[in-house]
């Protein structure tokens, strides 16, 4: 084949590769096969498998039937309802503050110099440690009595608070850890997005008398649309799939106050050995994730003003 090409190249004027490649499937199959095998085994296969598992009811003596029993049980389970509600609060409570904070920090630290570089590093560092390590540190921060928060709040005269043991405060404490851990990550995206906002546009608005707030609302935010377009789905994914701190710190408690969907699935699978419930809860979570990501992506897409 190479000789043929050489001959072609020597004779014909345009030195291009033969276009008939498109009809040759062998290289395509060989190149994609390794990825497809693992995607089949651990992504597509499992989705089908969990869908089927969730529909299998009444396993008695090797016999089973198909039905919606698992879903009936799931929707009747108050623990599941609580986990779903908590996850909604957790998603809002982590995404909104960390995005607002990340954008504010990116705006403040936009210029690059030694000072802003140090501040950026401090905010990004939590991204590099495991969530279980963050949980270990914050277990002490929130420790009643001797812990970091109580130690310093006590000096200010605030009475002792059991952050992780109080049903009204525990979810807030878990949210605080996530905000601490992820804000720096989102700030990096906003910094990259801000670098793409043309300075002359901002300057022109300033000359026209637009204040800082007006410039942010009318120029910077619309131009950051594409950045929001992928940061929001990433943040949603994090809110649904990162529960390491719940597993090690609160185990979903006290009395389900910090139970989240993936933790509920983990409980059903690893502690209650209820495969049917775990499968049904997985199907609901996957469906929620796919829908929400798609919707948020579309909504933001519609609001985006692309530079023309």
């Amino acid at each position, binding site marked *: 084949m190479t000789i043929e090409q050489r001959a072609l190249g020597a004779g014909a004027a345009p030195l291009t*590769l033969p276009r008939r490649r498109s009809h040759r499937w062998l290289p395509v199959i060989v190149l*994609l096969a390794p*990825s497809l095998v693992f995607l089949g085994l*651990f992504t597509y296969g499992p989705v089908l498998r969990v869908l089927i598992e969730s529909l299998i009811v009444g396993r008695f003596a090797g016999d089973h039937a198909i039905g919606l029993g698992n879903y009936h049980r799931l929707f009747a389970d108050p623990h599941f309802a609580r986990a779903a509600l908590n996850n909604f609060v957790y998603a809002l409570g982590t995404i909104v503050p960390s995005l607002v904070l990340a954008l504010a920090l990116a705006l403040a630290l936009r210029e690059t110099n030694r000072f802003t570089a140090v501040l950026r590093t401090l905010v990004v560092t939590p991204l590099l440690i495991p969530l279980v390590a963050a949980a270990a540190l914050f277990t002490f921060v929130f420790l009643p009595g001797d812990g970091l928060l109580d130690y310093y709040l006590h000096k200010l005269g605030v009475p002792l608070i059991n952050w992780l043991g109080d049903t009204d405060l525990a979810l807030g404490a878990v949210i605080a850890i996530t905000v601490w851990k992820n804000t720096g990550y989102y700030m990096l995206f906003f910094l990259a997005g801000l670098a793409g906002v043309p300075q002359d546009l901002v300057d022109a608005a300033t000359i026209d008398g637009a204040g800082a707030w007006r410039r942010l609302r009318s120029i910077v935010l619309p131009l950051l649309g594409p950045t929001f377009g992928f940061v929001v789905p990433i943040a949603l994914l994090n809110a649904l799939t990162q529960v390491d701190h719940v597993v090690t710190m609160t185990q979903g408690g006290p009395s389900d106050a910090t139970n989240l969907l993936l933790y509920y699935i983990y409980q059903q699978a690893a502690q209650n050995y209820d495969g049917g419930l775990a499968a049904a809860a997985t199907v609901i979570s996957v469906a929620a994730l796919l829908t929400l990501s798609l919707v948020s992506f579309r909504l933001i897409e519609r609001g985006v003003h692309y530079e023309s």
Partner: protein
Amino acid sequence: MRADGRLWGLLAASAAALVWAVPFAWMAVASLRPGVPPDIASLTPAGPFGLGNFADAWKNGSFPLWYLNTLLLCGGILAVQLVTISMAGYAFARLDFPGRDLIFSLFLLQLLLIPPLLIVPNLATLVSLHLYDTLPGIMAPYFASAFGVFLMRQTFRAIPRDFEEAAMLDGAGVAVLIRRVLLPLARPGLVAFAIVSLTAHWNEFLWPLMAVSSPKNQVLTVGLASFTSGAEAGSAWGIVAAGTFFVAAPLLVLFLVFQRRFISSFVSSGIK
């Protein structure tokens, strides 16, 4: 007026960054204070200081084993990923075939359908493949990477076709073309991917916790979780801080040294 606003912004950002640093500052201070001091929360204690907590943590945990397992896990995943993503990335960047865009979007589904979410069916798959409670079992779901394929597709697309055509006219076969021409030119993409992959798998917890049952297969994060619950029970907070330091330090050091590389890799991990 404008300069004023900027100054206030910097001041507020400085305050936020200081608050952000407090947990790390406490980890550093507490890990250096031996024993069980009553004011263990203090960020500015009088002392005494010493390295006793690090020695105790090292003795109480199985850190050498956990480090080894974590290195094997990250290295094994990355080695296979680099092969699978280069191959698929090249196919999507350079080959024409019917249904290419559809197959590519099927690949991208994996960005959302990540293994921790699919714990239940993935565990069943591991059991039927006889990979439950093995390191390769933890690795297997990550051998294909949609993000990696996406990144390599972009990388290969940015390489001018002229290079390939010149090599092929010189009589180079496909294997030589990939090894000698494409991969060296694709190195920035591969490095960016390696950083993201290493960080993700060094820090991962829930899937390694579920996929493994015997202590000899535990990785750092899983080891740390059991280690800290033991030390916390004894209120040995200095030892908890030292153990957390052991787990977090390698990546933190790499990050501080290669900060620019890490940051541009993280930014590329948000699909644009």
